[in-house]
C-alpha cells in the first residue's frame, strides 16, 4: 500500500538520516536508563522490532546514536529469533532487543528494551548458550511528534474495512454535544448532558464534571449545547447550553470542572493550531443562528435566516476545514476562510463530525442518518471521492445526536466519537459513545 501523501511529505521534509526529534529524545531516555558500558563490555548487537515497519529504521538510528554517545559499539542486528545466538557467535557482549511503538490513546512513543548478555562465561562454558547474568529490562517513553506518529502508524491489515466502529463507554443521560482535544494534560473527550459537563479520558472514563446551576435559564424544549476543547484563555474547555445566559470556560481541578471565565458567544468548535469558531443560539431555540466568527464578535450578524443544528471543525484543518448542518439537514462544507469548499451534502443526520480518518490531509464526514424510526446508522462520507459513502454501519438502536472528531487512539490520526442515545428499560436516556477509527491496531 502506498504511503499516504501526508506521511510522504513529512518524510521528505525531514533531514536525511536524522530520526524525528521525539524519537531521538526517547532513544536518549532509553540510553540513560541503560547507562554506560560496564566492565569494558562495549560490543552491542541492536535489534529493533515494531509492529509498524516504518518505525524500525528510524528507531534503530536514534538508538544507535544514543548508545554510541554512551560508549557502546553498536551493530544493528537482523537476527530475528536467532538474534541472541548470532550476537554470541559474532562475539558481541550484549544484545539489546527493543520493541518500539506508540502508546495507545496517549500520542506517545515507547521503547522497551531487553538487555541480554551474550559473552561466554568461563564458569558456564559447558552449557552452550548459557547467559553470564540475568537479562535486564529498560524502558523509556515520551511525547510523539507528528513525524513519529506517522512512522508509528501500523500497516492496515490486508482486506480490512475502511474503519471500525466500537463502543467506547456508556454515559447515563442524553449527550447533547461532544468535543475531542487537548484538555491541558493530554487528549480528552468533553461531553455535555442536560445536567452536567463531563471530561472523559480517551477510553471514555469520567475524570471530571460540573453540574451547572440552571436557575434563571430560559427553558428550551429540545435541549442543546455547544462544546469545544481548545485554547480559550484561562481554560481549555468552553461550553454553552441553549438557554444559559452565557458560555463558560472551564478548567479542571481534580475531579471538578471549575468556571474560570465566561464568554458572550457560543464556542461552536475548535481545532489544532488555535482554530476556533464562535456563534450564537437562536433565542428560545436549540439551534444556532447562521453566524460563525473566528473570534468573539459582539457585532456579528447572521449571514442568512437559516438555522444550524451544529458546526464541526476538521481537527487538523485541510481543504475541508469546517462543516455546518442547517435545519433542512443539508451539510455545507467550508474551507479555512469559511467559504464553501464543495457542494452541500443533503440528508446528513444531526450527529456529524469532520475527521481525517486515513490521515490523507482531507477530512471525511462521519455522520448519522436522517431516519426517525428509532434506529440509526453511522456513515463515513468522503466528499470528493467518486463513491462518497465509504462506510455504512448496520442499523443501530437509538439515535446519534452528537459527534466529534479528533485523535482518540493516539496514533496521530483523527478518529470520531459519536453519541448514540437510546433508552434504558426504565425509560431513562442513556448514551453509548461509539468510536469510529481507522487505526490499524483497531482493525480486525
Amino acid at each position, binding site marked *: 500500500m502506498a504511503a499516504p501523501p501526508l506521511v510522504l511529505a513529512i518524510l521528505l521534509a525531514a533531514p536525511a538520516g536524522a530520526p524525528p526529534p521525539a524519537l531521538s529524545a526517547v532513544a536518549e531516555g532509553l540510553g540513560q536508563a541503560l547507562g554506560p558500558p560496564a566492565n569494558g563490555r562495549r560490543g552491542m548487537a541492536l535489534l529493533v522490532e515494531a509492529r509498524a515497519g516504518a518505525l524500525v529504521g528510524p528507531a534503530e538510528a536514534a538508538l544507535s546514536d544514543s548508545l554510541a554517545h554512551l560508549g557502546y559499539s553498536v551493530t544493528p542486528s537482523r537476527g530475528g529469533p536467532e538474534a541472541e545466538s548470532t550476537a554470541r557467535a559474532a562475539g558481541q557482549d550484549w544484545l539489546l532487543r527493543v520493541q518500539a511503538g506508540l502508546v495507545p490513546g496517549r500520542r506517545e512513543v515507547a521503547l522497551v528494551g531487553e538487555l541480554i548478555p551474550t559473552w561466554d562465561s568461563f564458569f558456564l562454558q559447558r552449557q552452550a548458550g548459557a547467559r553470564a547474568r540475568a537479562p535486564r529490562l529498560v524502558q523509556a517513553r515520551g511525547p510523539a511528534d507528528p513525524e513519529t506518529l506517522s512512522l508509528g502508524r501500523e500497516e492496515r491489515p490486508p482486506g480490512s474495512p475502511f474503519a471500525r466502529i466500537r463502543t467506547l463507554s456508556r454515559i447515563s443521560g442524553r449527550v447533547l454535544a461532544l468535543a475531542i482535544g487537548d484538555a491541558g494534560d493530554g487528549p480528552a473527550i468533553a461531553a455535555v448532558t442536560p445536567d452536567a459537563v463531563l471530561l472523559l479520558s480517551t477510553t471514555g472514563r469520567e475524570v471530571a464534571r460540573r453540574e451547572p446551576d440552571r*436557575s434563571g435559564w*430560559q*427553558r*428550551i*424544549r*429540545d435541549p*442543546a449545547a455547544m462544546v469545544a476543547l481548545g485554547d480559550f484563555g484561562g481554560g481549555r474547555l468552553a461550553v454553552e447550553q441553549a*438557554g444559559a445566559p452565557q458560555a463558560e470556560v472551564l478548567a479542571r481541578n481534580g475531579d471538578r470542572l471549575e468556571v474560570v471565565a465566561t464568554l458572550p458567544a457560543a464556542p461552536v468548535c475548535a481545532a489544532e493550531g488555535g482554530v476556533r469558531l464562535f456563534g450564537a443560539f*437562536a433565542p*428560545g*431555540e*436549540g*439551534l444556532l443562528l447562521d453566524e460563525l466568527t473566528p473570534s468573539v464578535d459582539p457585532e456579528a450578524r447572521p449571514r442568512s435566516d437559516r*438555522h444550524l*443544528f451544529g458546526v464541526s471543525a476538521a481537527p487538523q484543518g485541510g481543504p475541508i476545514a469546517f462543516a455546518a448542518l442547517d*435545519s*433542512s*439537514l443539508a451539510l455545507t462544507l467550508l474551507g479555512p476562510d469559511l467559504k464553501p469548499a464543495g457542494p452541500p451534502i*443533503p*440528508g446528513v*443526520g*444531526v*450527529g456529524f463530525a469532520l475527521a481525517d480518518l486515513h490521515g490523507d490531509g482531507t477530512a471525511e464526514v462521519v455522520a*448519522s*442518518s*436522517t*431516519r*426517525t*424510526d*428509532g*434506529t*440509526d446508522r453511522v456513515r463515513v462520507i468522503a466528499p470528493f471521492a467518486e463513491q462518497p459513502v465509504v462506510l455504512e454501519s448496520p442499523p443501530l438502536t*437509538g*439515535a*446519534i*445526536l452528537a459527534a466529534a472528531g479528533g485523535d482518540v487512539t493516539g496514533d496521530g490520526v483523527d478518529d470520531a466519537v459519536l453519541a448514540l*442515545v*437510546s*433508552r434504558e428499560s426504565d*425509560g431513562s436516556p442513556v448514551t453509548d459513545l461509539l468510536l469510529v477509527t481507522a487505526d490499524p491496531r483497531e482493525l480486525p
Partner: protein
Amino acid sequence: MRAAFVLAILLVPPVPANGAARPAYGGEIRVLVSSAPRVVDPALAINSSDLMLVRALHSLPLEIDGEGHLSPGLLEEVPVPEAAGRAFRLLLRSGLRFADGTPLGAADVAASLGRLLSSGSAHAWVALPILGADAFLDGRALVLPGVEVLSDRELLVTLAFPMPEWPFALAAPTAAVVSRGGEGAGPFRLKTLDGSGARLEVNPFHWRGRAFADRLLLKGADARAAARALSRGEADLVQRPEAFAGARSCPPTPPLLVTVAVLNPRRLGSETDHVRNVIQSIDRAELARRFARGPSAPMETLVPPALLPAPGPNPRPVPAGDGARPVRLALLALADAPDQRAVAGRLQVKLFDAGLRASAEVEGPSRFAARFGAEDYDVALVAVPVLSLAPSLAAGQVALATRGPMVARRVLAEMAGLSQDAAFARAEELTRALDLVPLFATGERNSAGPGLEGLRVFADGGFDPGELWRLEGENR
C-alpha cells in the same frame, strides 16, 4: 395506579424516539379534526376538537406520560398525599408566565379550580372532591375553603374525603390554569377563531420552552375532505374516527368517549327495569363494532373498560324478558354525533322487538341540553369524553354529565381509593343505582402526513401540540 398501568399496556404502543433528526423549528402544523373547534375555555370544552384546542392553548398542573403515570407540568413535582389522602400541597415551578407575559401564580391555580364549579361548567368533577365544594356550588360559600394559597408558588388543597388518586384530576385538560383575563399558558396562543377553525401562534413563555412550530392550524373536516387534504399534503395530521388509506398510522386515542343510555325513572315508572333489561340485552360488542367508526370497546359499568376492565369474563347478556307491553318511549339523541344517531336507530329496533315503541328524537346540542336538563325523555343517549385515568374520577365525570353535581360528588366519594376489583363491583352497583346502561366506549385514530414528527400520544389520548414539527423534503 393500577388502572392507568392496565391502560398503558393495552393501548399505548411504545413510541420510538426521534431518530437522528432533531426537531426543526418554524413553519405551520395543520391539524384536521371532526368539527371546527369553537370553545377555548377549559371549563366548557367537551368535544374532542375543543379539547384539542384547549390542550394547545393551556398548560396543566400535571401531565400524563406515555405509560399512564403522572409527571410534573406547571407543578414542580407530583404532589404526595397528606392527611391520609385528604390533602395535597401543590408547588408551582418558578418563573411561570401566561402567554401574554403576565406571571402565573398559586392564586391563578386556586381561581381556576374554583371556576370549574361555576354554573355552566361541564367539568366540576375536578373540583367536586375539594372541601366545601358543595357549599360553593349551592352559593352558600363565596370561596372554596379547601383551597388555601400559601404563597406565590404554593397552595394547599384539602378534600372532603380521602382520595389519594385526586392528582389525576389535575392532569385533565379541563384542569388547565387560566388567567383572570382568560389567557392560557399553553404552547400556543390564539390568533383567530372562526367557523372554519382556529389559528394559533407560538407562545414564547411556555414552561417547557417555545413550541417547535411557529403556528398551529386546527380545522374541522369531514372524512372525505380529510382524506383529500392528507393525500395532497395539505394536512399534517388528521384526528377522526376513520383510518385513511396511504396515511402514516399513528397510535390511536384510547376508547374513552363513553356512550351511556340514561333512563328516566320519573317517566318510565314501573317500566324502568323492563326498559333497562331490554337495552342491557343488546349485544354491546356488536353495537360497538357496527356503529362506532373509531376503535371501540363494549362497556360493563359507567367506567370505560380501558380504565377498569372486568375482573372476569364478561357477563352474559340479560334476557329481555317476555310479555310485550304497550309502552311508547321518547329516545333522545344528539344530532351532531353520527355514531349516536345510528345507535339510537338500533335501540329503536331492539325496543320495538321487545314490544316497546320508541321514537328516536334527535336534537341539536342546545335543544338536547334543554330537554335533558328538564328530564324531557324516557331514554337519552349521552356521550361523555372521560378525561381522567383514575376510575373514580371517570365515574364522577360520567355521573356529573348524567345526574348532576351532587350525585357526582357522592359517586366520587364512594369510588375513591378503591382497589381495582372493589372499584369494579362498586361501579356496577352505581351504574344500576344511577339508572344508566353503559353501551360502548370509542376512540379516534390519528393519521399523519409523511413529514410529521413528534406525535406522542399520551395514555389519556392527548398529545402536546408543541412537540409537533415537520421533517422536510427528501429527508422524510
